[in-house]
């Protein structure tokens, strides 16, 4: 340390700091020049060569444009979903440790075990969902599709493993998410140099795979089983500031990375059939695009489903509220991981534990009844007997015996005549209180009786007005009847439009049902009466307390539910009769809506009156308890009528009036829904509420939305009503003529004018006067006004010719000034200021237009346009609450949603393993369908085998993983798709398979098998979807062969190519060829041998020739599509999914050897010796040939003469001896001579050497002698010179 301290400070010689210093220094000296060199020394930068300049310009522009991305509309929501961080790596590399460390870094919490995704808040604007990815290739594929950021863990002590590369390749195919490498196990290196080298090597390899400069993190060593704090902190910082580029697939599809799953199936169903399909709710953040209800989704590893319900929940891991501090509060550092047991729920293999914590006491149900049920030790019956429920705030608690008695109890209406106003008032009275001891049935009969009576006698018995009509004298009657008349008018066309309760109760329906039965045979007329009655009835009864109280009771006495249905149907019957009366006449949607609103307004005013009355009612309630039962019955009946009618009307579905009714109904439902929930609280300020509602309705324009869409909830029962069956046997036929008329009306898009206006009238004509350019314009567009404005701004100018100065009018004209006097001076100032600003702005605009014109490129324009669209998208629904926003947009990404799905295979629930990710991927339109998909495919260069046509293979395409049978083809030059037996080795080829329709341009990858592990690279092929179709065009070559059976000159008769004259007829004119290359054409079929034909050739055939025709045969593609259902496998076996096997695999497993055809086996090649015949030239030809080419008649050689063949000489033994001796002697002699020669040569050499020596000596001697001589001569000369010098000197002296 001391040494370091003593180290001298080095000045910086380069870098920005040094530059700055240098500049300052120069400035101090007065030499500094802020101008750049270009200005200071223009000559140096003068254009030397125009061409070169053009090139540099071109190049810079190229570089600039290269940086551009195609601008896309930014659709990221304002509050984005958590960033999905996927931690990948081979086993034992430290994935879980890293996740734990990261979680601890961000939240200061320690997770023991990590299962499934963990969501944490990492900053003020960012949340992270961290999920671990195992080495199962299924998991890797699924998670690569949803990842925003990949943390790729690499064991530095080992180097890269196959999993890493596989994952990288998967990522490349499915859009490339951000990838960050993390090197672990760096502490195993003892040698520092080795460590550095390894790091560098790994880094460069990583760069080639991802992109040069990709971030690679080093985690050095472990401290107590964790990574160093500082390093994790840095990594966390990197993650939380990272930016992402949107990926096409992800932004165009909604998806959910589920972090919670619940089984919602009825336990009873499961008990009855443990293998029944399940209903499941799945929770998670919605990402990508907007999700719509009822849309199709795919769960990778499970299959396709239709979302049956979506709802959004409060964010369990919300971003902190806006705060000024830089760092997060401790309490905002949330973590949410229900599968790991953080969100209060712990999942075990076969149980779910809920940690209630301290909240346990608070949550506890405070209903006495329920509580007592919870802590029960005796049977329910006993408990029920002792428990009591209070229905109203100040009523006496009910015991079980009361409940039993009350099976038919409902609030009965009791009529009272108010003495002051003379109005009849209805009182809700409960039966048990005027307990008359009569049995229920009798009562029922009584009711019916009385009802019948009343039906006959008077239409509006239970009705205020009806009653008043009868009983009220004089003026009031007039007034009311007039009102009523009016109402009838309106209701005639919008019958039964009035509100009913959202949910009718069993008791009510039942009673009305009974009535319905009696009414079945009543006439149409009566039905009409009902219509009237029901309207008025409804109005008050909707408010009536009797209703709500009866509902309360009915919950405890759900008797005869079965009957209810039947009765309701009967009601429908009646309704239809009623429906006939309603004749819809529509001009336009708006018109009718207006009418309706009028009627509505009236209705509500009436309502108001009645409600006032009711208020009094409630006060008087306690005192009077003697009920007459018939009256309320009637009343209630009316409600039911309207109710069922509304439901029924929807069946028609298309007439506007009905929907108008719904609309009104809806409005009122809203008003009362809150009220009906609480027992009698709603009565408290009814008048005020009614007044408010009235005002609201008056103000708001008729709501077209309701007109078009109705209320969303009502749609559901539309279909239910359609096929109700009586006791499961008989179908109730309902004559719903009205809807039928509509349903079969003329299909025409024209919008005819029903009531044309009289366009001859001036007023009418004036009503559209301003639609024309000749009419008045808006203030900001009126040409005259604009001109005037401009005059004010640009009015000052000087006529140079005349020298006259024109002044624009002063801003405020005289007239204006007069006005202004009255105003405050402040306003004037303001105005002045505004004008000035305006003028400035205009001038600036002009200036900009003049000078900045050229700058805006196409790219800039496009970008700006996208920007605008983004703003519009964000602004459009901003001010609406989520509930209604969801209807228009669908569920926004970033919301925490709960998705209900039905018909999930039970294995999904039974074999649920939180370690495997559950993904819900939304499908676009018709992406749930199947068809033929054409791909451009290339075998992966690291995959060791080539792919075979018709071998099943597993594709990962879109959200899906599925097995299918592809056919490989190549496109010929003429666009023909020719089938290939195998995929090419290093080339792209086409592939077609039968499978899910996926948008063009989607990437895919193929693997041979997802089960087990192989040391080799598993990704077999990659590519992209090109085309989708419902038919295919892949063909293979087919050669038809035939043999001539009759040969004329160039014409031959061919047989064996076809089987029938029809086939021949189909191929008439087709080109054929012999193997030897003679071309021909099919002419016409022959009658006799079936399928023979006449053909002409360019030359005469031989009988041995084979004739063939080349044709193309369309290949059929097997419709095999098998989704990989890996998530349905039992835990621990999830990576062992096997689908269809290839024939090769099957053969191998079953030990069946391929039986080869005999002629496809190789045989040893035997070459026969060729015999060539002698060339024979006919005599005539020989004669004609020139001499040169004539075969020469070589004369036969004469026999050798006698002297040519002499007899051999055979020596005598003596002679042999002599010759042997002679040979031996001559050999000896020759040897001697040879030796002598050698000797001689040696001598000569010696002699020459000697002589040479002598001569050298001699030369030496001579040299020495010469030397001596010359020395003497030299001395003599010297002497002579000396003496001569002396002499001269002497002479001088």
């Amino acid at each position, binding site marked *: 340390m001391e040494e370091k301290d003593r180290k001298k400070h080095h000045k910086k010689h380069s870098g920005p700091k040094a530059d700055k210093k240098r500049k300052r220094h120069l400035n101090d000296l007065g030499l500094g020049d802020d101008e750049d060199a270009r200005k200071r020394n223009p000559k140096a930068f003068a254009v030397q060569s125009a061409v070169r300049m053009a090139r540099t310009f071109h190049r810079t522009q190229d570089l600039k444009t290269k940086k551009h991305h195609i601008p896309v509309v930014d659709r990221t929501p304002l509050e984005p979903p958590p960033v999905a961080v996927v931690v990948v790596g081979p086993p034992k590399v430290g994935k879980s440790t890293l996740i734990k460390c990261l979680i601890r870094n961000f939240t200061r919490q320690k997770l023991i075990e990590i299962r499934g995704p963990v969501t944490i808040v990492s900053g003020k604007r960012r949340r992270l969902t961290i999920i671990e990815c195992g080495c199962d290739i299924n998991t890797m594929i699924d998670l690569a599709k949803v990842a925003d950021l990949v943390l790729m863990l690499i064991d530095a002590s080992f180097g890269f493993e196959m999993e890493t590369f596989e994952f990288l390749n998967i990522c490349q195919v499915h859009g490339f998410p951000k990838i960050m490498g993390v090197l672990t196990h760096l502490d195993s290196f003892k040698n520092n140099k080795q460590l550095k080298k390894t790091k560098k090597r790994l880094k460069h390899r990583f760069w080639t795979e991802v992109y040069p400069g990709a971030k690679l993190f080093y985690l050095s060593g472990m401290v107590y089983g964790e990574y160093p704090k500082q390093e994790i902190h840095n990594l966390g910082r990197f993650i939380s500031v990272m930016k992402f580029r949107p990926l096409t697939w992800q932004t165009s599809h909604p998806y959910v990375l589920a972090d919670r799953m619940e089984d919602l199936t009825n336990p009873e169903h499961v008990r009855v059939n443990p293998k029944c399909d399940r209903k499941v709710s799945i929770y998670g953040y919605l990402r990508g695009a907007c999700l719509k209800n009822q849309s199709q989704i795919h769960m990778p590893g499970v299959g396709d489903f239709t979302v049956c319900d979506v709802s959004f929940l409060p964010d369990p891991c919300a971003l902190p509220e806006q705060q000024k501090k830089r760092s997060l509060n401790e309490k905002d550092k949330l973590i949410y991981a229900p599968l790991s047991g953080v969100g209060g729920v712990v999942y075990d293999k076969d149980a779910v534990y809920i940690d209630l914590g301290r909240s346990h006491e608070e949550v506890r149900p405070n209903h006495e009844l329920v509580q007592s049920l919870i802590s029960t030790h005796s049977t329910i019956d006993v408990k029920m007997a002792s428990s009591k429920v209070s229905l109203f705030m100040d009523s006496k608690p009910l015991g079980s015996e009361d409940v039993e008695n009350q099976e038919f109890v409902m609030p009965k209406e009791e009529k009272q005549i108010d003495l002051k106003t003379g109005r009849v008032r209805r009182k809700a009275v409960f039966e048990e209180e005027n307990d008359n001891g009569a049995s229920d049935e009798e009562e029922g009969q009584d009711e019916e009786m009385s009802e019948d009576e009343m039906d006959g006698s008077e239409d509006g018995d239970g009705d205020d007005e009806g009653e008043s009509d009868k009983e009220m004298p004089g003026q009031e009657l007039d007034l009311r009847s007039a009102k009523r008349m009016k109402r009838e008018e309106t209701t005639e066309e919008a019958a039964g439009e009035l509100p009913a309760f959202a949910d009718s109760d069993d008791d009510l329906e039942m009673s009305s049902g009974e009535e319905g039965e009696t009414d079945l045979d009543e006439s149409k007329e009566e039905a009409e009466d009902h219509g009237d009655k029901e309207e008025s009835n409804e109005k008050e009864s909707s408010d009536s307390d009797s209703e709500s109280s009866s509902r309360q009771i009915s919950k405890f006495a759900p008797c005869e539910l079965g009957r209810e249905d039947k009765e309701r149907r009967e009601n429908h019957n009646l309704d239809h009769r009623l429906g006939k009366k309603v004749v819809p006449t529509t001009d336009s949607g708006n018109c009718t809506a207006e009418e309706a609103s009028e009627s509505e307004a009236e209705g509500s005013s009436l309502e108001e009156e009645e409600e006032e009355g009711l208020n009094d009612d409630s006060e008087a309630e306690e005192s009077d308890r003697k009920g007459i039962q018939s009256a309320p019955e009637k009343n209630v009946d009316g409600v039911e009528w309207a109710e069922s009618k509304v439901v029924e009307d929807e069946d028609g579905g298309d007439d506007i009036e009905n929907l108008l009714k719904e609309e009104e109904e809806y409005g009122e439902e809203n008003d009362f829904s809150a009220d009906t929930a609480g027992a009698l609280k709603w009565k408290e300020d009814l008048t005020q509420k009614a007044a408010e509602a009235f005002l609201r309705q008056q103000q708001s324009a008729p709501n077209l939305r309701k007109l078009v869409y109705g209320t969303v909830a009502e749609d559901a029962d539309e279909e239910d009503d359609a096929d109700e069956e009586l006791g499961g046997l008989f179908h109730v036929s309902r004559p719903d003529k009205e809807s039928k008329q509509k349903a079969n009306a003329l299909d025409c898009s024209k919008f005819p004018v029903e009531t044309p206006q009289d366009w001859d009238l001036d007023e009418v004509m004036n009503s559209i006067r301003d639609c024309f350019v000749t009419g008045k314009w808006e203030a900001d567009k009126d040409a005259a006004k604009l001109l005037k404005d401009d005059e004010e701004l640009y009015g000052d100018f000087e006529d140079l010719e005349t020298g006259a100065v024109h002044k624009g009018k002063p801003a405020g004209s005289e007239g204006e000034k007069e006005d202004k006097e009255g105003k405050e001076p402040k306003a004037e100032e303001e105005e002045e200021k505004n004008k000035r600003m305006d003028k400035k702005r205009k001038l600036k605009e002009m200036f900009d237009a003049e000078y900045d014109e050229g700058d805006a490129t196409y790219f800039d324009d496009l970008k700006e346009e996208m920007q605008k669209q983004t703003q519009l998208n964000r602004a*459009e629904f901003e001010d609406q609450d989520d509930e209604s926003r969801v209807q228009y947009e669908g569920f926004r990404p970033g919301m925490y949603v709960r998705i209900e799905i039905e018909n999930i295979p039970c294995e999904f629930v039974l074999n649920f393993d939180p370690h495997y990710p559950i993904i819900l991927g939304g499908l676009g339109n018709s992406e749930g369908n199947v068809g033929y998909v054409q791909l451009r495919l290339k075998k992966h260069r690291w995959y060791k085998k080539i792919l075979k046509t018709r071998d099943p293979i597993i594709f990962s395409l879109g959200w899906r993983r599925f097995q299918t049978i592809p056919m490989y083809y190549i496109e010929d030059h003429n666009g023909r798709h020719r089938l290939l037996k195998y995929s090419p080795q290093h080339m792209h080829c086409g592939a077609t398979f039968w499978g899910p329709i996926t948008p063009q341009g989607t990437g895919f990858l193929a693997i041979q098998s997802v089960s087990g592990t192989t040391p080799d690279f598993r990704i077999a092929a990659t590519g992209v979807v090109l085309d989708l179709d419902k038919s295919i065009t892949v063909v293979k070559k087919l050669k038809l062969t035939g043999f001539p059976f009759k040969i004329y000159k160039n014409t031959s008769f061919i047989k064996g190519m076809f089987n029938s004259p029809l086939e021949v007829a189909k191929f008439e004119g087709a080109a054929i060829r012999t193997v030897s290359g003679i071309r021909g054409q099919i002419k016409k079929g022959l009658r006799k041998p079936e399928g023979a034909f006449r053909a002409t050739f360019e030359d005469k055939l031989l009988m041995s020739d084979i004739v063939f025709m080349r044709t193309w045969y369309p290949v059929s593609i097997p419709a095999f599509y098998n989704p990989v259902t890996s998530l349905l496998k039992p835990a621990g076996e999830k990576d062992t999914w096997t689908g269809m096997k290839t024939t090769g695999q099957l053969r191998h497993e079953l030990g069946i050897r391929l039986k080869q055809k005999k002629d496809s086996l190789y045989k040893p090649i035997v070459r026969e010796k060729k015999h060539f015949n002698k060339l024979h030239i006919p005599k005539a030809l020989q004669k004609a040939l020139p001499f040169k080419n004539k075969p020469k008649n070589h004369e036969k050689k004469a026999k050798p003469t006698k002297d040519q063949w002499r007899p051999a000489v055979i020596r005598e033994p003596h002679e042999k001896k002599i010759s042997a001796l002679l040979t031996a002697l001559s050999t000896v002699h020759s040897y001697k001579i040879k030796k002598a020669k050698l000797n001689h040569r040696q001598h000569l050499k010696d002699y020459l050497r000697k002589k040479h020596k002598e001569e050298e000596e001699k030369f030496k001697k001579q040299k020495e002698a010469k030397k001596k001589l010359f020395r003497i001569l030299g001395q003599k000369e010297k002497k002579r010179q000396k003496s001569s010098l002396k002499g001269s000197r002497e002479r001088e002296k």
Partner: protein
Amino acid sequence: MASQQHSLSYVGCNFLRQRLVLSTLSGRPVKIRKIRAKEENPGLRDFEASFIRLIDKVTNGSRIEINQTGTTLYYQPGLLYGGVLEHDCSPSRSIGYYLESLLCLAPFMKHPLRIVLRGVTNDQVDPSVDVLKATALPLLKKFGIDGEGFELKITRRGMPPKGGGEVTFACPVRKVLQPIQSTDPGKIKRIRGTAYSVRVSPQIANRIVDSARSILNKFIPDIYIYTDHMKGTSSGKSPGFGLSLVAETTSGTFLGAELASNPQGQGTAVLPEELGLNCAKLLLEEIYRGGCVDSTNQSLVLLLMTLGQQDVSKVLLGPLSPYTIEFLRHLRSFFQIMFKIETKPSYEELQGGEKVLMTCVGIGFSNLSKTIK
């Protein structure tokens, strides 16, 4: 196997075209029951059969099942194919009936559509070819469907009852549509029109023009009504005459109105003057309704907005026609899309009736049929 999306079920033959078109675009099968089940002559009519045949022609791989009486129709859509086609439309409805649906489908084919339709060009029921040419084509251009191969040519005129007209429709293919924001209808700057007459006196057309101008001249001077008298083979098989008018605004909105004479042998003869007057009044009605799209094309514009990218589109319409209202409901059931509907009272006094502002977010539709190279 991929679970096929459950089919939608409807009752009655009304809105048959909408249902089939939306089914084709969304890929959801549709089942229509009880087609005129209670009538004397049950089942599909010839013009509907002809329409179904046309749908079959432009698609590939669709499955159509009709029961024996023709009262039930099941349609499982294939992919839109397009190409060069010919179709003989039934003379009981005009070509407009077929063309309206083709306008919805044509931009999403595999190959650019070029189709020759033969039949009745103008009648009293459906929007005529002239009006569609003048209003629907500019509308499609707003969505980015444009180019050389986009035209609608009337080669022959045919009047009901016998028809004999011929129309060529060609449309290029697009992968995605642009969102539109047309909330300003602008002001009408000119009125154009065509007065046509076939197999009647050529003078009739001039009479129509004069009477129509007499009304319209009170509003705007820039009026030109072409007289189109067809002779010989290009005049179809039945006599008749009519007028179609189109008002163009400064912001490129086209509002159309039309009227045709009664078909030969049906109803009383119509005076050309009267027809001209009435047609002009119809145009004024249309102007009164106003909006950025005229009442016939409301459903078309709403469909194209729905099929846009996941961006907000807005359009200002006149009062919604019953057909459009039903179309909106169908859009919801096929695409799960709901429009935000706001009524806009006319800003100033003299600008016609109430307007409706329709807003929606596109579903991010992309043309699945188009091939990429």
